[in-house]
């Protein structure tokens, strides 16, 4: 084969067409984070995840943050493969740095980040080489609470509550009932943090890959703050 063909070598060229190893490597996540949850409250959004990365059934890292603070109005968090998360984290933070340097007043906002993430995730799934993460993008968009979900398949939607992984089964119902009962405009930060903490507690009890060291991010008119706590 001519050397020009080297630019287009695929895995099957390398292995002589006898193995789908490279294809299969993409078919499962390796070091993973568990569920994340998030919801609106009257002045912003609250999002939480735990700090553990599991390597199959091994609890591998105990103090890993799966949040990316993009700016004071925008935060995202994900579950799934931690290496894929780190790639996206590098890419996003690189873009944030170059936005700061341009300093033309144009910055990330939740809608922009959500949109961009969805494009990237959908593109990768279409190439059958997914980034194995489901993201929650939250913050303040034009002063109003914004929460968007982007899955590894490239689905995206916005809602007043969102969760990934086990949280989809256990936490969505709880958050939805609470929101429908009180209405977002009546939910204070304390109420939202309490519900979110209860969700994380339930997940710790019932999900095998959840941990009790959790991180909670609150994005509101007062900026973005985060807190790490340990559930009892």
């Amino acid at each position, binding site marked *: 084969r001519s050397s020009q063909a080297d630019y287009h070598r695929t895995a099957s060229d390398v292995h002589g067409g006898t193995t789908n190893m490279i294809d299969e490597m993409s078919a499962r996540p390796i070091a993973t984070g568990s569920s994340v949850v998030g919801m609106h409250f009257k002045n912003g959004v609250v999002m939480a995840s735990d700090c553990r990365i599991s390597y199959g059934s091994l609890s591998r890292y105990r103090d890993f943050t799966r949040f990316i603070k993009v700016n004071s109005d925008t935060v995202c968090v994900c579950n799934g493969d931690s290496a894929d998360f780190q790639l996206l984290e*590098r890419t996003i933070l*690189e873009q944030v*740095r*170059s936005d*700061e*340097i*341009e*300093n033309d007043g144009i910055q990330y906002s939740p809608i922009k980040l959500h949109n961009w993430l969805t494009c990237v995730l959908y593109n990768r799934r279409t190439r059958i080489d997914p980034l194995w993460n489901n993201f929650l993008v939250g913050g303040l968009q034009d002063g109003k609470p914004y929460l968007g979900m982007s899955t590894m398949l490239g689905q995206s939607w916005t809602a007043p509550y969102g969760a990934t992984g086990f949280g989809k089964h256990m936490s969505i119902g709880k958050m939805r009932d609470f929101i429908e009962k009180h209405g977002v405009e009546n939910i204070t930060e304390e109420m939202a943090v309490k519900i979110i903490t209860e969700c994380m507690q339930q997940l710790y009890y019932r999900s095998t890959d959840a941990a009790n060291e959790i991180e909670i991010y609150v994005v509101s008119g007062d900026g973005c703050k985060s807190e790490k706590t340990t559930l009892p």
Partner: protein
Amino acid sequence: MSSIGSGYDLSASQFSPDGKVFQVEYAQKAVENSGTIVALRGSDGVVLAVEKFIQSKLHETEVQSMTRLFHIEEGIGASVAGLLTDCLMLVEYARDEAADYRESNGVRVPLKVLANRVADYVHAHTLYSAVRPFGVNIILAAVEADVGPQIYMVEPSGVVYGYSGVAAGKAKQTAHTEIEKLALSRTPCEELVKEAARIIHVCHDETKDKAFELEMSWVREGMGYERVARDTLMKADSYGKKALDDTDSDSD
């Protein structure tokens, strides 16, 4: 000095019989037509000052369009003289190279490395007839952890030197004379800001040149790159004007 090219000046890929590359010399002329820029290396940082000509009264000066001071990377600033659109290309290149270095190496690019990369890029445009050289002098400045404040300037030929103080543009000779009088390494940036403003005012030729706006920025130890704040700028500007008026009245 200004010899007629007579046939050896049509492309950068040709030498003249007396060993010049005329296209590069013409590029340097483009820089000499532009407003003066000055860079001063002080004890705790670098001050960059620009004599920015105001092309028209209709221009919106508050919006800092057509600025000649740029933020390249965290803690690295640049000022440019010459053809503005060529300048913008080089600034973009410098930003890309710096970002790339950080992506690959995890740390900020050392200023020397960045200056050399920009110089190589500029030099590459002096080798082929398919492109023209950059009509730009770009000054890069930063405060490095181990060596302190640094200034590098790249010229249209692709040559790059480190400086303790440098100027480019219309009145660079006048500016250099003024810079040599300063005790740069012992002076903090807060003082140099005023001196830089004074030098720009000295360089500005009321009779020949249009109205100008003084633009200044600085890189300082622990503070990164910033445009000089409005009130500091105004104070430096009036110091500069006053110093010029004083020298004028002295010479009467």
